[in-house]
């Protein structure tokens, strides 16, 4: 394997509140290659979201190293960090909470173009039109406020915002979990299409093992702040080695039809 797009080694993060300590990340090692989909699965409270936020430089880790495309990400601060942010983006679970409640669709998509000086000022409205078309939204939505459009449309706007700067990595933190099944399938198809065309790598955080098996290239299982198992998606889900991997697969088999296609043949 050539050098990975993103590599994390020994990431640690402990949250303290008064006397209480909670080790959300207890030494995470993770690699994501360019253009691949790595799924991250694990029970609630296992550190999935904390890991996503540390990788996005939203939370400072207590220890560990983080390299993105050869750059030491943890050493970057201020304007240099803001500049490199165009190359890795994130889509949040709740698309309503992820936008300023007062913003319009157009403003949400204009900001990344303006901040990263993409296209000239006069070209940006056309760019926004192209982005909307890219994620399958009508141009007439651009003047609407975020709270006026549907959940599926919001998540498409979130994806449009994430790809506006042409990133190499997009973290999808439970990005389709809140959507209903038919919308979820459409969004997954859109994400797969974007990946093929723009060679975007995804870190796909999900509860849905059936979805993970069908869409991810590799899976990493996280438990109590550690990656306990990593492997090729179909093989790992068919025969998990770790206790947590087995538990997750066993739990998913008990709910055969809830998440669309039947889970196991």
């Amino acid at each position: 394997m050539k050098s990975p797009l993103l590599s994390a080694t020994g990431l640690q993060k402990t949250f303290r509140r008064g006397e209480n300590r909670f080790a959300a990340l207890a030494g995470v090692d993770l690699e994501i290659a360019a253009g691949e989909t790595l799924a991250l699965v694990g029970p609630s409270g296992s550190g999935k979201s904390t890991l996503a936020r540390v990788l996005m430089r939203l939370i400072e880790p207590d220890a560990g190293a983080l390299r993105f495309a050869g750059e030491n990400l943890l050493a970057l601060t201020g304007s240099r960090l803001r500049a490199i942010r165009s190359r890795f983006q994130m889509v949040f679970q709740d698309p309503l909470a992820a936008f300023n409640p007062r913003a319009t669709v157009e403003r949400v998509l204009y900001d990344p173009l303006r901040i990263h000086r993409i296209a000239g000022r006069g070209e940006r409205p056309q760019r926004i039109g192209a982005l909307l078309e890219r994620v399958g939204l009508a141009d007439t939505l651009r003047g609407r406020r975020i709270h006026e459009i549907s959940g599926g449309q919001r998540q498409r706007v979130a994806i449009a915002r994430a790809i506006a700067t042409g990133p190499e990595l997009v973290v999808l933190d439970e990005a389709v979990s809140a959507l209903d099944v038919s919308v979820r399938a459409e969004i997954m198809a859109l994400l797969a299409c974007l990946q093929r065309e723009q060679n975007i790598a995804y870190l796909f955080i999900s509860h849905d093992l059936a979805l993970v098996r069908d869409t991810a290239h590799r899976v990493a299982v996280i438990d109590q702040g550690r990656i306990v198992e990593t492997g090729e998606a179909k093989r790992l889900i068919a025969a998990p080695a770790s206790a947590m991997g087995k538990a997750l697969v066993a739990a998913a088999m008990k709910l055969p039809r809830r998440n669309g296609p039947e889970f196991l043949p």
Partner: protein
Amino acid sequence: MKTLSRLLRSPEAVAGFALLAGMAAMALLAPLLFPADPLAIAGPPLTPPFETWQHVFGTDRLGRDVLAGLFHGARTSLAVGLAAAAAAIVAGSLIGTAAGFAGGLADEALMRVTDAFQTVPAFLLALAFVSVAGPSLTTVVAAIALGAWTGPARIARAEILSLRERDFVAGARVVGMHPVEIALREVLPNALPPVLALSSVIVAGAVLIEASLSFLGLGDPNRVTWGGMIAEGRTVLRSAPFLSIIPGIALVLTVLGVYLAGEGVVEASAARRSFA
């Protein structure tokens, strides 16, 4: 639109806005209806009210027309009240945003300064400031704002502390937005509604402090003020009580109007939010 119709259904709000509209009309019409200098002598001194059409509310000790004073005084009261409240809210919400968003040492330092200001009574602070800086419209505004910014600052900070943990702030950071822009453009506008709810209380307080300063002779000497008129009438309180009572009533009605209108707006918008 819905907020407006709900506003018009509440009798308190309607009364408040009617009073305020009356005061605003007085302030705006003053130079048209009473083009002469309201501080100039206009007739015989101590004319009682409702005696001549020329001086409906009578004249004061020096023969100045009370009605003209009342109209011109409305200008000063409303101007000072609104300007002081605006200054207090702008300064307070910026300081509160800075404290809440920066956190850590900056937050501690700013909040201790806020505490220090809150321990001194607003009126004493204004009194001290005007005594040092000299009475003029701008110093009076600054003096009143000096004692009123702490409320907006505390509320803005509390709002920002809860808003800054929200995903949309993380989203703005992911996009690469500068922290100052995040604070001022993303977070602050969402923190404003509860801060603005304070504005009616601050305007009412500012009108009263301005009147009190003028009563003590620390208002702008080149302007008629209701507080100054009350002080002027005090010396002849036994023989001509109307000289203090008339501007006193104007003061009460203004403060009442501001308060009722403010409550009405807060309640109408709160109702809208709970239905949304």
